[in-house]
Structures are given as C-alpha cells and as structure tokens.
C-alpha cells in the first residue's frame, strides 16, 4: 500500500509537474525564493505525513491542517497578496500546484485506505451462499391447455378460427341435426348423459361430442367457414380408458370447392406438425359416421419394436381421428344448399393425442388434480406454443 503511494508520487503523473526549471526561475526573487523553498519543504513534509497516515481519520486531520480554512497552504496563499503582481502570479501558480498535489495525494490515500477497510468489512459480512433462496413455488399449465394451444397454432396457420358452444345441448343439436335420428344405433352407443327436458319438453343432454358446434356455426355464419372447436365433451363411461368428461377438437370447413383431397392434406399436415414427424405416415380408411359421407378414419404410423412405442414410420398403425365430407343432410339441416356448398369435418380426442405425444400412460389422472402428476406432466407457464417458437419442444 505504502509502496503504491510512493510510486504514485515519483511517477510521471501530475504530481511530478514540479520540475527543477520551475525552482530555478523562482529562485531569482529574494522573498519569493524563500517562499518557494518553504513550499518545497512543506510539500515534502506533507507528502511524507500522508504516506505515514494510518487511518482515514489521520488523513482528514492532515487535510484540514494543510488545506482547511486555517491550513498551512491556505495561510501561505493568503500571504501572496503582499507580492508584486509578477511574483504573485508565479508564486500563486506554484502554491496552487502544491495545493493540488497535496489534495490529490490525500484523496488517493483515502480511497486506497477506504477500499482496504471496505474489503475487510465485506469479508466479515460473508454469508453461506449455499443456503437455499427464499422459497418460491412454480405454477404450471395443464397438458390439455397446452395441447389445445398447440393445435390452435397449427390450424390457425391453415386459416382456421376457434369456435365454441354450450356443454348442455338440446338433443336436436347433439343428434338430430347431425343426422342421428332417435332410434339410430349410433345414438345408443354413445352413452349420453341426460338432463331434465326444457319447458317445451325437448330433451337436454350433455354434448357427447363437439359436433353440435358445427350446426350452431353453420346456422349463424354464411360460408366460407373454417373453424376448429376444442372443448369439453361428456359420455357416461368410467373405466381405465374412459372418463365421463373428456375433450375433443372438431374441425369444419365449408365452401364451394373443398374436397377429400383437402381433408387429407389438412389432416396429414396437422398430424405431422403436431407430432413433429416430417415423414409420418398417415392412412385414411373408409368408415361410418352419420354426419359425414364419405367418412374416413385416420391412422398414423407407429412402431412397437423392442417393446417401445414410437410414433413415426413403422410396421403398425394407430387410429387417432374420424373425419369425412359433411353429409348433405347436415348441410340441409343448417339451411345450407348441399348442391352449392360442401366441405369436410373431423374430430379427435385431445387427451388421446396429448397422451401419444407426451408419453402420458393413463387417461384418468388428467382430471384427478394430483399435484404430483400436474407438476410432472404440466408445462412452464410462459411456454406458449407458437409456430414461431415451435410446438414440439
């Protein structure tokens, strides 16, 4: 520390501006020469004292005794008034230099000493940084929400908007308008939850699928229509693979030209984007739904080789959704002329595709609200699925 101060004084910095030439010039005047000699010795004395000061307080005393209102340098400056103008200027400059040098030396020493004192204090303030931080808990987003957000992002790219509808439906919207007459076997197979009929005696049901929103949308909106309908659905089933409440997403496209090629293209593109597999094989099989004609079930490729299930090119197929061209009767039921308009519809289980994508083995824990399950299978709150950010992280 001391060494540093010395080095500071003997270096080429501002403190060394007092060169021998100055002293020679000053020596030419009598009284002035004395003053200059005094200043020189004072400088040596003060700098020596600064170097020897042991605390900031001592330094402060030094500052006051030299530079304070009654300090020695201050006093000498007061004496300048007695000199003639030329000498005064010369001596004034020298004294100012001295004042600056001493002030700088004191400041520098103070800073250095202050740093050392601070360092010593900081060492004493040391804490155990391995202690845990203040507790914070982490929130999470349910896989159903995340999956709906993902598929919304994908279908939005294809020009779809999101429509929704009531869960408590009339049986007209849930069945009749969808070409499912009361006696239809399909209607019996759906295990519908019933509520008491409304004032007019019309049966009320919990919607067994999101398809009633197709009807509501077609009644309210003139084509072209391009919607997806994610939402709650209900069936009176409760076992290891069925839940009385689950989620579906419905899709509906109605315009003048959409054909089965678009149905295929749309769903193949979706499956590949959703599962993040570029070459995912997607197979369309003829099937039957009362509200579509022709109807197709859609399988995606998978493999179970080595006891490990994987979605992608493989030797096996997995059914994931139902689809078809909207039945002319359904269009008619909504007041749309089937000779002018056509389109396709599809529906799939959201839990099912979430389970497949995220490797969630069982359906029922989705609704059990077991915090351990939600933390494990849930998503970081700000991981909002977007096309820009990717939906397969």
């Amino acid at each position: 520390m001391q060494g540093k101060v010395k080095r500071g004084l003997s270096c080429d910095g501002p403190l060394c501006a007092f060169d021998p030439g100055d002293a020679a010039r000053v020596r030419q005047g009598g009284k002035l020469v004395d003053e200059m000699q005094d200043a020189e010795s004072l400088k040596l004395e003060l700098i020596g004292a600064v170097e020897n000061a042991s605390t900031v307080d001592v330094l402060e005393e030094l500052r006051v005794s030299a530079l304070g209102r009654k300090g020695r340098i201050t006093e000498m400056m007061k004496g300048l008034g007695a000199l003639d103008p030329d000498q005064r200027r010369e001596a004034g400059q020298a004294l100012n230099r001295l004042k600056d040098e001493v002030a700088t030396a004191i400041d520098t020493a103070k800073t250095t000493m202050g740093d050392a004192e601070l360092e010593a204090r900081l060492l004493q303030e040391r804490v155990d940084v391995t202690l845990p931080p203040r507790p914070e808990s982490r929130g999470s987003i349910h896989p159903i929400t995340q999956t709906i957000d993902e598929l919304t992002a994908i279908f939005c790219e294809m020009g779809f908007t999101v429509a929704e509808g009531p869960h408590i439906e009339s049986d007209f919207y849930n069945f009749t308008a969808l070409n499912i007459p009361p006696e239809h076997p399909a209607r019996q197979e759906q295990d519908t939850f019933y509520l008491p009929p409304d004032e007019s005696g019309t049966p009320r049901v919990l919607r067994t699928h999101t398809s009633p929103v197709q009807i509501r949308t077609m009644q309210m909106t003139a084509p072209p229509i391009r919607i997806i309908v994610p939402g709650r659905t209900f069936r009176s089933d409760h076992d290891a693979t069925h839940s009385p409440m689950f989620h579906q997403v419905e899709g509906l496209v109605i315009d003048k030209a959409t054909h089965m090629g678009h149905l295929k293209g749309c769903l193949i593109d979706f499956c590949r984007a959703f599962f993040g597999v570029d070459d995912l094989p997607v197979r369309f099989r003829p099937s039957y739904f009362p509200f579509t004609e022709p109807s197709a079930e859609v399988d995606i490729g998978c493999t179970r080789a080595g006891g490990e299930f994987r979605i992608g090119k493989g030797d096996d197929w997995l059914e994931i959704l139902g689809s078809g061209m909207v039945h002319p009767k359904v269009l008619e039921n909504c007041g749309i002329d089937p000779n002018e308009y056509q389109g396709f519809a599809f529906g799939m289980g959201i839990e099912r595709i979430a389970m497949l994508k995220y490797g969630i083995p069982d359906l029922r824990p989705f609704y059990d609200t077991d915090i351990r399950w939600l933390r494990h299978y849930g998503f970081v709150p700000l991981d909002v699925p977007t096309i820009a950010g990717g939906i397969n992280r």
Partner: protein
Amino acid sequence: MKFTLSWLKDHLETTASLEEICERLPMLGLEVEGVENRAKDLAEFIVGYVIEARQHPNADRLRVCIVDTGTEQVQVVCGAPNARTGMKGVFAPAGIRIPGTGVELKKGVLRGEESNGMLCSEREMGLSDEHDGIIELPGDTPIGAKFAAVAGLDDPMIDIAITPDRADCLGVRGIARDLAAAGLGTLKPLHTSAVPGSCKSPINWRVELPEQDPPLAPLVVGRYFRGVKNGPSPQWLRDRLTAIGLRPISALVDITNYVMMDLGRPLHAYDADKVAGDIFIRLAEPGEKYLALDGKEYAFDEEMIVIGDDHGVDDLAGIMGGERSGCGDDTTNMFLEAAIFDPVRTAATGRKLNVISDARYRFERGLDPTSPYWGSDIAARMVLEICGGEASELVVHGGEMNWQRSYTLRHSRIIGLTGVAVPETDAIRILRTLGFEVTGSGEAIVCAVPPWRADVIGEADLVEEVIRIWGFDHIPNTSMTNDHVVPVPALTPEQTRERMAKRVLAARDMTEAVTFSFVSAKQAVLFGGGADALRLVNPISADLDMMRPSILPTLLAAAGRNANMGIADLALFEVGPQYADATPEGQQTLATGIRTGQTAPRDWTKAARAVDAFDAKADAMALLEALGAPVTNMQVSADAPSWYHPGRSGTLRLGANAFAHFGEVHPKVLREMDVRGPATAFEVFLAKVPEPRSKGPARSLLKLSPFQPVNRDFAFLVNMDMPAEKLIRAALGADRKLVSQARLFDEYAGKGMPEGKKSLAIAVTLQPTDATLTDEDLEAVSKKIVAQVEKHTAGVLRA
C-alpha cells in the same frame, strides 16, 4: 363379425392370400380386429400311432411309448393314464414350442429312459383346460397327418368390426362381395332358387299387430318340415361354428345359426310338436314373461313384439326364441320362421331387457327386405340335405316392403367431392360388382340400389361406394393454405382472455387443474346451486350428479385429496365452465383459484405464513389488471357469496358490476368438503372484463413531468370499522391534479389507541406537472388532504 378363410372362399373365388385379404379389408372400411391362425401354431403337431406302451421300469406313473410318426419311430416317456398300445394321439417332436405352456420341448432322459417328444393333452395344445389325459384321435385318422388339418383347426379365423351402416357385412357373403368389388376375386353365385313345398303347413301365422308406418312386421315367412332327423351337425358345420366361437347345438339349430352368419339372415326353428295351434305375433300384454333360450326369464311391456301359441308367449321377436318351443335332439317336425321386424322396435326392446343376441344385432341394423324368401329357401335346402324329411309350402304374412330406389350419380360429383377422377368405366364396374344396377353412361348414370344396402340413400353415398372401393389412397393430399395477408386471429377477444388468464395465474405460481363439470348435489347446494334442471338423469355415480354451480367445489375436493397425500400447501386454479342454469347463456367461464395451508414450506428465512384473504385478493387483482380491467377504479364491497368467510371476503366491483369475489373460504364449507384450512379462494368473472376499446394499436401519448415528486406521510385516527379504501380515496380526491398515489403502509389498533379507534397511515405521492412544489404548495395540499380525510372518514390527523 367373425369368419374363416375357407368360409369366405365359399363365396369368393380368389387366389389372394390371408395377408392380402387382411391388408385390404380395412381399406374397404372393414376394420380387422384380429386374425387367429391356429394352423401356424399347430403346424408341427402330427398324428402319431402308439405302437407299444410299456410300464416305465423306474417309475410307477410313467409309460414308455414307441410312437410311429409316419416317417420314423420315436420313443416317448408319457405320464398320461390313458397312454396305451394301439391308440392314436397328437405327437409333438422335440424342438417345438408347446402352445399351452409356451415352453420349448427338449429331448431328455426321464429316470433312465430316453424321451424324444411328447404326446399332448388338449391343455398342452391350448385347446381347452382338459388335462386328465392325452388327446385320443379316432382309429381311422391317418398317421403322420397334420393334426391341425385333422381337427379342423387349419382354417384361419378373421374378426372384423362392422360399422353400423354395413348391415350387409353381417354375413360372410357381404364381405366377399366387397372384396370382389375391390378386385380380390370373383363373387360366386348364390343358389337361391325356391324349394317347392310338398304339403301344406299345419301351422299358420296369426299376426295381430297395430298398424303403423313403418309396419312392425311387414313380412313373415314360415315353413313346416315333417319327418326330420335332428342330432349333431356334420363335422364341417360344427367346425365352422366352433371356429367363430359359436357352440354347436343340433343340426336344426346349427343350420339357422349358419345361415345367419353366412348371409346375415337370422332364422328361428320351433319344434312344431311343441307348438299348440297357430303362431301369433302381437304386442305383449303387461305381466307376460317367458324363459328364453339363454336360460333367463324376461318380463315384457306392451310395446314389445312377442310370438307364441295357444300355450302362451315363447319368443321375443327378432331377439331370442324360447326354451319351451325350441328344437331338441328328438325334434322330428320343425317350423321355421324368417321374418322382418321393425328395427327401431327391436332395438328398443333389446335395450330395455338388455338381451344381447346375434339375431338382435342384425334385426336392429336392418335386414334385406327380400331375405325371408331366399333365407327360408336356403335353410330349407340345408335342412332337407342334412336332416331329411319334407318341406311344406311357405306360409306368408305381409309382403316385401318397397325397397326399390334409384339415384343419379354425376361423374363430376365424384371428382368434386373426392378430388379424384375415377374413370367412368371403373366407377360403373365398382357399382355393378357391389350389386347396383347401373343404367346409362357418361356424366350422369342411374344406379338402382340392391335390397341389402339400406344405407345408401343419395348421391353422396354412391360417391362413397366408388371412392371406398377405388381406394382412399388415390385421393390427392391438398394442403390448406391461409390466404390472408393480414393475419386473422384464430381466437376471439374472449378466448384470448381465457387463454391469457391461465398463463397469468400459472406465472403467479398457481398450478392449473382441469376438473369435472359435475359435482354432488350436496356440494352444489353449498355453492349456491342445486337446481333440478341441472341434475343429471343418469349420473355415473351419486356424487357426480349435478352440473357445478362453481368451480370451487371441485378444486377444494382436489385440495382435500392432495392433503391426504401429504401435500397441504397448494395453489390451484382452473379456467373453466360453471353452470347457472341449463341454457347456453347459463354457462359461464370463470378463472377460479384456491390457496391452502402455508404460502411456502418452512425455510430458514421464515418466509412462510398461513394463506389469507389478501393472497386471494392479490390473485384476483393481478389477473384483472393483466386482462386490462380498470382495477384501480374498482371498489371492494364486503358482500361475497355465502361460501366465503363473512368477515374476510369481498367483491371487486365497479358499481353494480361484480368482477370477482375473493376471501377465505367459509369454515363450514371446508368442514362439509372435508378440507382442512386455511383456504382462500377467488372467482373472476372473465366475461365481465370489458373488451379493450378498439382504437388501433397506437397508445395514448406519455407525458412525463420534469419535476421531482414529493412524498409525505400522514397517520389518521379513525373508527375501527372504517374501510381503509375510503380513506385512500379521500386522500386521492383531495387534489386530483397533484396527488398521484396514496398507499396505505400501516394499520394499527390496540395499545396506545383510544377504545374503538385505529390508526391508518398513508404515504402520499405528490407529482407536480407545472413547477417545483414550494413549501407553501406543500402546506396547502397537506391541509386539503387532512380536510378531505376528515370529511369522508371523520379521521383525525395524528400528531
């Protein structure tokens, strides 16, 4: 629907392999659920002849057998009690896998005697549980023959799922027809010519049904068979039925089952000698019942079609015959019924009585309206061939329903709907092979629908038939593009709000839950619900019988379950529906959350504390603010619903408009829900948040004051029940231009305070906009604040 490969080939002339057929079926809409190829498993098992069976020299229970396998003689040590010289059995050579045990058979030495194979029991073959002895084959079984072939097990069985529209594929012939149309062979002709009757039937129909449209029994055909000899069916027939999981009973019964599976035509055979008088078909009378062939007794209601005779009812039309008049081994005279019953009525009856039968399955999906005639003829030919005797003339009631119909199919429609230009000639060929009569050519052809395709009712159905057979693989993949230059949001403002609410709450350390929309009636009542209109008629269980009036009961119940697992400190939320009534408007989306237990686990900083109403208030306010609601203007009223603690809850509102409730959950509610407190909750009505006024994306101009704000603290003595909010508003209102913020930083009551009084301290920020505040300005505004507070709260500035 199960069938075997050889059965299929009765109808389909084909060289296609099992694999080809099974690959093609699903692409025709006939989903393969399973294939059982027993011949594959049993390929190595052959018929062996036991040349000699002698006692094992070192083991009482073992025998040493020399088996002739047709190609060599093999020594086998056998433990079966029935192993004896001269018998024929099933020989398994060493090195093969035994299907019943899954273990590979190895050569070995048993107590000093070599054993180079095995004689098998039925259990070891995986055929049954029989393990008392080894299988004994008839003496004339050829030595060295494949056992699978000898036992009729070499016919692969295919099980397919039939969609509800394809009633025609509930018989093997329908499946063969589809495969033929798809180019996998040729459909063989079916011999349907009439069997002439040689006598009159002594039994006639007496149909006494009410008239309705469609009729309940449009066509009923019967036929009497005299002098038949019943008994076991021939082996081929028994094998076929066994292969598809049906138990052979007797020739007459087996024939009816066979025709049903072969052609989708259910039949019923009565023992004519057990029938008294004519056979009636009518609606049941209340209280009538019968003992069905499944051994169960069923009681009817007056909507069910029943069949019977002078002794009473003994058949449930289209569903199941009765025990009393059924055929037995000793039946010599038989009366055959082939009818059409109304599918709707049949389905309703079957459902009500919960009887499941192959007949019901077919009746309720609709039969070929012409089938009573050809069905009874085909069955008659089999009866005469297998059981002998003679057949009467038909006794017929009613007639064929009008099933003839034609539709025009435009070729442009095929392209328009499918995107595939199926060549005209191919489209016509496909329809013809499926049984459609096609007239005309070119753009518009006329297609007459065959009687077995009740599902085809318009042009779109014809397009489906063509594309289904032509192959969905030919349809192009046309990607859907979004042609909007300015992106159209997929979500409405409401949907965006709901979506955002979830992320906001999750970011506030809450865990998102998705819970059932139903609760128990008891819970519904606790949360202001319980209306009968929201009670499920057929709930899955008694505690899930009411649509929830609030999301809170399902969240609180979840908290209780987690607490039972040792996790009591929770922050859960759900953005979801609750139901005020059964109308679409009654369904509201709320963001609802709860916090229970401590705010954090115990830790060294002692940060944890019990959750309280202000946690819930903070959640609700943060959410509302994030959604753009004017939170700073909202008032809090202490009138939250009954499920909140009456003294520690509130409602955030703007005038009459309530945006959210928050507070501690009422201890009584917690007790009823079996949840340990403390628990706080909030319910935010998302729909109440006003939509942002659409003024475009530009923000209002920000004006920043260049002058330094000044902070001043004030403490007031007020009455104990004075709401802090009132004081804060008074301070804010003292000088709207200058007072930019008033924050309450202390509330104190107790020692040093007069009885019934408390001290409220606020920090007021004064933000000048025109000039720096002078001492006089400060003095003036302070006076205004004190005056306003005094005026509105009777509060007195503390010295």
